[in-house]
Structure formats: C-alpha cells, structure tokens
C-alpha cells in the first residue's frame, strides 16, 4: 500500500517533473515561423498521366510535330490553354491542333498516327483518374 503510495508519489513527482520539463522545453520551442507572403515560381506541365516524380521527366513531345507538349504546335504562338492537348482512348497524346489537322487529311483514315487504331478522343481520361 505504502509502496504503491510511494510509487504513485514518485510517479506524481516524475509527472510534475516531466510536465515541468515539458513546459520548459515547450517554452524553449516558442520560436515560430509565420509565412506572411510568398512569391513563388512554378512551371506548369500537362498532366499526361505519366508519373515522373523522381528527377526531371523525359520531355514528352507531340508525336506529330515533335514539339514538347508544353510548347505549342507549329500553327500556334502561345502555349497552354490556347494550344491544348488531346487524349485518345489508345493512350496517345498529341497537340489538339496537330491531331485535328491529321484527322482532317484523307490519308489518316481517322486513325491514331501512332498505332493505326481508330481515333477515339478520351473523355478527360487523366483528370478522371486523378479525381
């Protein structure tokens, strides 16, 4: 009994001690960094579904015009939303303008230029997989 008492006492003491210690150390951790404003720089990138988290991704180019996706197709001058990509069911991705021009030619037979399967535009395939 008394032993338990002492034990509780001891644990009490220790508890207080620890809490004191904790308080003290907590006190010493009062340093706080607050971000007020951040002017950051970022590059945008098409989310082509390929995960390239580690290291620099191998530059993906449009299979038709050989220009990087983040560049713009030969007829455009401004990249991004003005020169979007188009995803096919066959998982191939092109600049939309490039592909539409290709599909517009008779020789294309409405096929994907990469695998000669009939071109079917995917419905936001990548975005859907993300969400």
């Amino acid at each position, binding site marked *: 009994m008394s032993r338990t008492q002492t034990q509780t006492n001891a644990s009490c003491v220790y508890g207080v001690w620890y809490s004191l210690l904790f308080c003290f150390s907590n006190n010493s951790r009062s340093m706080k960094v607050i971000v007020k404003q951040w002017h950051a720089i970022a*590059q945008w990138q098409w989310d082509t579904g390929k995960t390239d988290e580690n290291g620099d991704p191998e530059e993906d180019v449009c299979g038709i015009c050989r220009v990087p996706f983040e560049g713009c197709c030969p007829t455009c001058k401004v990249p991004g939303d003005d020169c979007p990509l188009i995803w096919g069911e066959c998982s191939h991705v092109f600049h939309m303008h490039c592909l539409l021009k290709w599909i517009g030619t008779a020789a294309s037979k409405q096929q994907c230029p990469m695998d000669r399967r009939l071109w079917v535009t995917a419905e936001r395939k990548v975005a859907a997989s993300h969400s």
Partner: protein
Amino acid sequence: MASEALRNQVAAKWQDSFNRLNRGSQGISGLMDFSKAWAVAADFLRPRDLGAPPKDFNTHEVRGAFDVLMQCRMLPMLLESFVEDMRRNQHLITNDVMRFMAEYEVPTDSKKASGEADVIGRLVLLLADWYFAWAPGGELGHTISSAYIVNFQTHIFSVLPSTFAGGFKKLLAATLSLFTRGTTPEIPASVQDPKLWPSFELLGLADRYESLIASVCYEHIEVHVLETCTGKWDEPMLGQLREWMADKVVPWMLLPYARGAKTPEEARTMLQGVGSRFDFHVCKTLCDLRTKEMFDIVIDYPDSIPSLHDLKECLQRVDQRSQLVQTLRKANKKRLLHPGADTKDILTQYVSLIRCLRIIDPPGVLLFKVADPIRRYLRDRPDTIRCIVASLVVDGESGDSLVDQDEPIQPLQTAQVDDYTDPNWEPEPIDAGPDFRVNKPSDVVSTLVSIYDSKDLFVKELQVLLAQRLLAVTDGNYEKERRNLEILKIRFGEAPLQVCEVMLKDMTDSKRIDQHVQFQSSSVMHPTIISRHFWPQFQAAKILLPGQLHEIQESYAREFTTFKPDKKLRWLSHLGSIRLEIQLQDRTISADVPPLEAAFIELFSEKDVWTVGDLVARVGPVERPAALKALLAWVNRGVLREESDGADVQRFRLLESASTDAEAAPVRMATTGSRATLVEEQPTVLTVQQQQAGQMEVYWKFIEGMLMNLGGLPLDRIQTMLKFAPGYDRTVDQLGGFMDAARREGLVNVKDGIWRLNR
C-alpha cells in the same frame, strides 16, 4: 701717221668735252661756271654725319647748279662721285648699327621682348634718319634717287648682323600686339611711332623680310587661337576668331600688305590674297587644336556641339580629315579600348562619337573609319550585348540610357542595296574606303545592333533580361515591361519577340489564376506560373522545402489542379521570395528572404542546433557555400549564432533571446558580414553565355569522337561535320573560340590548322 691721227682725235675729244662743259660761253667762263656748279652740287649731296650742323643751301643756287650740270650732261659723273662719297662715309652708319646691335645682343635677363623690340625700333628710326639725311632729294630725277636707294639699302643690309632678323621679328610682333591688345605702357614709344612703317618701307625692310612678317602674323594667330579656344567647346569660336581678325589683325595687315593703297577699295584688293591665306591659317590652327581635343569633345558631347560645327567648317577649308581620323583612332585605342574601360563607358563614348561625327561629316565616312576598331573591339567583349540590351530596356527615370528618349523609335535598318533607279543617287565620298557602306543616317540602336552580324543574340539576351526583371516583379505591375516590349517589337519585329510575348502572357495568366485560387481558398502564396519552353533556362537547384512551406506548396498545387484539371505545377522552389515573420521569446523579426533561407529557418523551428551538413541533407542538393551564405544571412539578422567546437563541423544555434548573445553578437556580425560578401551573388537566370557553354559541352562529345576516329581535322571540316548534329547553329568563329578554350584546357592541340586530341 698713227700719232697724228691720235693727236687729232684727242684734240677733237678735248675740244668736244670743252665745248660741252663750256656750253659755248666766252673763253672759259662756261668752264668756270661748271666747276662752281659741280662744287655746289657735290657739297649739297655730300653725305654728312647726322650730328654735323646742317648746311643751309640756297635752293635756287643748287637748282641752278644742277641745271648747269645737266646741260653739261655731267649728272652721271656727279652720281658716281656721290656714290663714292657715300661709300667713304658709310662707317658712320655702320657705327650706329653696331652700337644698337651690341645693345640688342647684350644678354641681360631683365630685358624683355618689348625692350628688345624697342632697341630695334630705335635703330630702324635712326636708319631712316640717315636715309633722309643723305637722300639727294626727289627733284633730281628718278635715276639719282633710285641709285641712291639701291646703294643705301645694299650698304645697310651688308652691315646688319644676322641677329637683326630675330630682333626685327620681335619688333613686328610688338607692333602687332599693339594692334590686337591695345596701347599698354609696356610697349615702348619707338614701336608706337607712326613713322616706323614708312621707315621699313624706305629701308626696304618690308620687302626683304616679307616672310618674316607673315610668320609673325601666323605665330600671333596660333597663340591667340590656342589661348582663346583651348577647352572652349560650348560656343562657336570660328566666328569670334574671324571677327578678331577683322577688327584687330587686318588694320595691322594694312601696314605691310596694303602699302601705298590710296583708297579703301584698293586696300581691299591688295589684302584679298594675303587675307585668305591668314584666314586659312586660322582655320588650320583651330582644326589642329580641335583634332587634338577631339576625344574630350566627344566625351562632352551634347555640350560641345558648337565646337563640332566649327570643326566641320574648318575641315571644309583645310583638308585634314585623315589627320582627324588618325588622331581619333589613336586616342580611342589609348584611352578607350583597353581592359580598364567599362563596356558601358565604351558604348556611351561610341554613341557620342556617332553623333559627333554625324555632325562633322554627314555621309559617315569619318565615322566608318573611326568606328571600325571600336566595333571590332566591342564584338570581342563578352558583355557588350548585355550592355546594349540593358540600355534598350532601361527605365525612363534612371536617365543614363544610350538612346535618346525623344528619338523616334524605328525598325532596325539593314544594309540597303543600292537603288539604281534613284534619281538623287550620289557617289560615295572621295575618301571612302573600299568596304565603306553607305548607311543612311540611321538611328543609334540600329548602329549598335549592327556591331553583330545577327540580331538573334540580342533577342536571346533580351529574353534573359526580361525574365530577370519579370521574376523580380512582385506587385503585379508589368506595365513598364509591356511598354518596353512594345518598343522593342517596333525595333526587332514581331516574330523574334514572340517568346517574350508569351512570357508576359504567363505573368498575366498567373495573376488571373492566383485570383481564382485565392477566391477558392486563400493562401499566402502568390506564384508566377511560367511556360518553361518560353523562358530562359533556370539554374537547376531542386531544394525540398520543409514543414509548413511544403504544405503551402502542396495545397496551392492542389487548388491549381482543381482549377486546371489537366495541368499540374512543378515548383522551382529555389526561386522567388518569402516574407517571413519569426516570433522569438523576446522579439519578432520579419524579413523578405529567398526560399533557401526560409527553409533553413523553418528547420530551426524543429530543433535549436543544426550542423550545416544536416541542414543541407534535409533541404536537398544545395552547394555548401550557398547554404553557408543563407545561414550567415540569418546570423546577420541576429536570429542564429555560429558555433564552432574546434572541429570542422560548423553548427548554428537559434537565439531565442537576443540578450544572451549581446556581447558576442557585434563581433560575430563583423566576421560573418565580411564572409557573407565573399559569396558571390549568383543570378537565378542562366545568361546566354552559360547556356551556350552548356550546349557546347554536348558538341564536345561529337568533336571528341570525330578527332578520335578520323585523326586530325581542320576547323572547317569539324564545322561541316558538326552541322549534321541536330540544333547546331554556331559559326566557325565560335567553334574556333571553343576549340581554343579546349586547347587551353589541354584537351586538344593544333598544328598547321589541324586539330588533334591530346593523348
């Protein structure tokens, strides 16, 4: 008989002479008259000492005597005897001349030029007195007086010592300064004597020393021009000089050059030739002076325009264009084109030079000749393009732009092909060199850009500059940059600057996206989102931001992806700036810091003491100097303290309360402060040179393989082979420079133009 005949002849001669002298008078009374007349005339003519009392002659008697002699046709005899008399008395004059010249030559220091001039002046006046004293008088006819003059002058010139010329020059100079400077007490009376110039004339000095007179005038002009015009570039001097000539020198010139002119018109015609000679000399002197000063005139450019107009006018009279070119080239080489001169200064001087020489020589031949070395030198300078570009986009308010703000902005001009149908065609100027190109008065920017063969380099450099400026903008105000870009578009054309256009569009897009994201969930982060193929390459330094910084990034990226479902963000974490507030026990510090510094201080909120190595390990691939610099920045702010326990390990401790380090802080600040400056500030955007060097490393592999497989190759062969490599766009010169660099590094060697690998 011969003797009979001779006698007869002598008798006849005698009779004849007698008759002539006797003039048919009774007995020998004619002869008596003649001898009396001879005595009177000879006495009248006899040269006397100046000091001797003048004899009083009865004019009538003398005239009668001469008449008698004339009738007897004995005047030549009389003349001869007169000349003989003169010769006998010459020593009188000689003595005087010697006396004066001795006085002149006495070497005394105190004697000034005016004093010397005075001695000579008095000598001349005295000689004139002698002349008048001995002169036979005009009424005796031309023969006698001219013979007298010849004899007198011959004698004088024979006795005047060689030093007289120098003295005479001083005298002339004194008379000239009398006219130009006005009467001063320093000028002795003899110089001011109005009889002086007639005396020169009488003694024949004016004719004999004509070149001396001219040289006196030349020298005087030179002195005056140097005195009045040296360093005086801000007002036109030529007009003033000409006025000075007309007011001061021409009245003097009337004396020697318009002697005997009776009317002003006559004087003017007499002065015409010599006047234009002196005017030429004024121009030449001024031209020499300005040529010598040209470099400084160019430095002073906008203020020195009047002097340039002067020089232009002078050059039209004096053909000294080649001297101007040579002097200026020499001055440029010595004072401008050396490693000590700042590129910006060279450019400024070049631009001023362009403007100056356009004033002097509108067709631009001079400019072409002078500018050629400067252009070649500038082409070799690595930072020329950057300087030019920086001055192209310089802010209006900084005001040190190379380009005039009011100069109309025009498209760059390219070399024009001759228009053979142009009715106003003019041939090239006569002193144009074979490679002279007529460039029409084009604007300064075109000239600067034409230093290089292509304008692509400029566009690249512009892109880098624009990137640096855009990334530095934090308040979202890009109007200035847009305005700059529009101006540049006019100059360089729309197409090359398309890239820059995209960059600006990125800026506005980021702003719009940010507004949208902020509306969704407010964030402290306002990123600039760029299209990476349209921006210059950035230094690759992928740092991982710790703690809350990373969370902020992540949440923003999430919001972005919701807004633009098919795009994602890749952070360039090492770029940008963060405003932090650091709350410590006893103080709060706020600062704008680069991300690396923010990352470090964020880590210090985990624990108080970090070694540099641990910090770097947490943040990622950061070079140690950069990391140290970031930490020292915090040390300087008094947030961290550097601790060293003797080992190589550097530790940093967070200072919760400033007071604990009160005594150590200042010392620490001093040492770290100096150390912080050692670390060089690195630009975040890679310059064009760095980019090119990076690309060249790729081609080095090709070159290495080529030389390994094919042995030695000449430079142009390497160039041809490299052309096959994708994206290779260097010139042979650039390749040559690269190969030279490789040789310096000991990778290759070259012999007789063949490059080989070093093994």
